[in-house]
């Protein structure tokens, strides 16, 4: 089947989801009110709380949620066939991610734009604050470990990407300094930055850098040397002010995101590549993970990602001009992420191979599918780019640079955020020294994922994505489950039908818990991966804790519904002073 047909069909389904399902959510479930005074107006401070045009806000929201994660999951999951992967992306995006991202935004707006972490404490229970912090700690640890391995693998497989990635750092700083000092418009310098980056891609293509000799001297694998370098870099980068490196590099990255999406979809249209991957894979090799539950945690970002609730409630909700804009910003943002995941499916099912035999050679086992995921994506995108006249090998460096740029920025941010989480947990535990030391917190933020990425057995093909990625997927889905629980309780308290939220929440928690239990058995049986047993166990305990907390909170809110609001309603209830009128509630 031509990939372009699939792309058009998916876009059409996304459009239907937006037109009908998001309208249902907006009117019947979240009961958005165009006259509601949003925190952006009520608390306008010109910094965080600024009423913002919905199209502008969508751009800010989308560039904050889109990146490398929705690329990796689908690139692995086509192992089960491209149809199940795509179905989960489409159904997940329309009925889970849209509900989640939109809902987190809506609930936050009704609570002074507070973030999902503090809402969890108020809406679910005060205990769940530590639950939230623990889930985020593991989420960030796994993100940093996995993306370090992604970068290490890509630098080894595509050594031409090394020069552009490392020269991009001083280049970004120089551009930032130029804009800062001259106070000039950013357009021309950032375009110059992108052009310079593409020139560096050409330079890197002709001057690949490999660390084989250094790795031999150190007695390490080249990939592991890159992993260590990346963590040293992120530790230093996380100590720099964001305006010095992170922001100017984001100028270049945001251009890259749109260029990569454009190249993919125009390349698909021009090349009319056909999907050669099997629609459904009935002949799975023995020992392969079952599609249930593993498909649903392998593709997290791209179908539903708990991290989006942090963006929705952390920054976006503070800028919503009208409450009804939440539909456009939150729901369409999720559709954008789903589109990125679809691009990944097309790249690894149509772009990466010309025949079924070639494809089978790339995806013989789950381990190979996992180990080769990012390389397959890079080669697939390179094929689409070559449809537009770019030399294939040069195009592979281009695609590798896109993935590494996003992965590196995610690591920068991940380590930066992890320091705060470590300090927050230390404050709760009354570990004063750690709670006050950014350096100590930063070292923990770097050391834990570094050890995980280099743990014994990590050199096994498929470790990063066959194992760590699945753990990352489970924690990401747990975060989504927690956010959905908050939204469900809020919707229930407002006398609305919460089924649209409960359905994805229950599905996610079942899949997550099921996967954690299976994985626990797998890790137990593999002595070289003993480290992962306690890790999996802790995440499983968090999942069960979350299920209990969500169950209690929902039961309480249902009881409140029957008896009217409690006299001891928490802050979150008290703040929700803008409940819809009785007429609305009956609507």
């Amino acid at each position, binding site marked *: 089947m031509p990939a372009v047909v699939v792309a058009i069909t998916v876009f059409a389904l996304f459009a239907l989801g937006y037109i009908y399902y998001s309208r249902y959510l907006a009117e019947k479930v979240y009961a958005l009110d165009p006259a509601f005074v949003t925190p952006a107006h009520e608390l306008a401070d*010109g910094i965080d709380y600024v009423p913002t045009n919905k199209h502008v806000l969508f751009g800010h929201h989308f560039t*904050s949620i889109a990146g490398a994660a*929705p690329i990796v999951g689908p690139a692995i999951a086509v192992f089960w066939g491209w149809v199940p992967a795509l179905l989960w992306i489409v159904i997940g995006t329309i009925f889970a991610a849209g509900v989640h991202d939109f809902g987190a935004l809506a609930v936050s707006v009704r609570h002074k734009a507070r973030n999902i972490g503090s809402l969890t*404490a108020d809406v679910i229970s005060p205990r769940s604050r530590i639950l939230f912090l623990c889930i985020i700690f593991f*989420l960030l640890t796994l993100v940093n470990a996995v993306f370090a391995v992604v970068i290490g693998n890509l630098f080894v497989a595509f050594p031409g990407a090394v020069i552009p990635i490392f020269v991009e750092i001083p280049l970004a700083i120089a551009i930032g300094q130029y804009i800062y000092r001259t106070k000039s*418009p950013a357009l021309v310098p950032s375009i110059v930055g992108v052009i310079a980056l593409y020139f560096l891609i050409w330079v890197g293509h002709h001057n690949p850098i490999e660390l084989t000799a250094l790795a031999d001297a150190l007695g390490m694998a080249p990939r592991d040397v890159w992993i260590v370098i990346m963590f040293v870099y992120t530790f230093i980068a996380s100590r720099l002010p964001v305006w010095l490196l992170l922001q100017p590099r984001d100028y270049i*990255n945001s251009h890259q995101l749109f260029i990569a999406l454009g190249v993919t979809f125009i390349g698909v249209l021009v090349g009319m590549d056909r999907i050669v991957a099997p629609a459904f894979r009935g002949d799975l090799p023995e020992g392969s993970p079952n599609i249930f539950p593993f498909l649903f945690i392998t593709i997290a970002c791209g179908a539903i990602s708990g991290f989006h609730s942090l*963006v929705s409630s952390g920054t976006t909700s503070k800028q919503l001009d009208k409450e009804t804009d939440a539909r456009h910003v939150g729901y369409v943002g999720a559709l954008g992420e789903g589109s990125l995941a679809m691009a990944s499916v097309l790249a690894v099912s149509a772009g990466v191979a010309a025949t079924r035999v070639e494809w089978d050679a790339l995806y013989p086992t789950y381990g190979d599918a996992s180990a080769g995921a990012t390389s397959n994506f890079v080669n697939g995108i390179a094929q689409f780019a070559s449809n537009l006249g770019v030399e294939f090998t040069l195009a592979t460096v281009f695609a590798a640079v896109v993935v590494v740029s996003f992965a590196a920025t995610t690591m*920068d941010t991940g380590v930066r955020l992890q320091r705060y989480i470590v300090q927050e947990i230390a404050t709760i535990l009354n570990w004063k020294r750690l709670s006050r030391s950014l350096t100590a917190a930063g070292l923990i933020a770097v050391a834990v994922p570094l050890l995980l990425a280099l743990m014994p057995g990590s050199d096994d093909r498929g470790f990063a994505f066959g194992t760590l990625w699945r753990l990352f997927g489970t924690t990401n889905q747990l975060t989504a489950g927690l956010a959905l629980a908050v939204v469900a309780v809020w919707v229930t308290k407002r006398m609305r039908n919460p089924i649209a939220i409960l359905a994805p929440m229950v599905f996610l928690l079942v899949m997550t818990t099921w996967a954690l239990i299976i994985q626990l058995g797998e890790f137990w049986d593999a002595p070289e991966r003993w480290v992962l047993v306690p890790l999996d166990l802790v995440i499983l305990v968090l999942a069960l804790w979350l299920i209990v907390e969500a169950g209690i909170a929902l039961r309480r809110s249902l009881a409140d519904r029957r008896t009217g609001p409690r006299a001891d309603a928490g802050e979150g209830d008290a703040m929700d002073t803008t409940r819809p009128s009785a007429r609305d509630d009956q609507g």
Partner: protein
Amino acid sequence: MTPAMPNSPGTSPSHRILLVRPWNMPDGVGAGCCGGGSTKGLCVATGHEAPHGDPRFRERAGWDAFAEMYLAVKDTVRGRADLEVVDPRNHLYLLPVLFGDARRRGVERWQALRSALRSPGYAAIIVDGRTVSSGTLRTPEEAVRLIEAALADALAAGDRRRV
């Protein structure tokens, strides 16, 4: 009682004022899924709800001047113009809007394009596609004065066109 919202449905101000954020004060970032929001110190932890006084968000102190200017302009133009604050990177939004606004003022295509490309500078103030300030973060009083003058000019130009 629900206070009236500026620019709420029913009112249709005929002017558009764009305030371009200082470049080190953008909103979203291209940081990627599971990494977004770094620029503003994404509030994942409950203790970071009020980061103004938090030394980890030191760079935010410099943003207060922009905030004061924004609040002054907002109060001044309430109901008379659409006021939007835009990230300087948001070229996908800025360029068509600036081009369109300039064309509506009767500016020729090529001139409108040049103006659109040059406009979104540091802390720029743009009224109906016309850059009234760029490269300097204006005080609230200066910003209000510049905007009032630009709106008066626009009004006069509109009258001339109607005549």
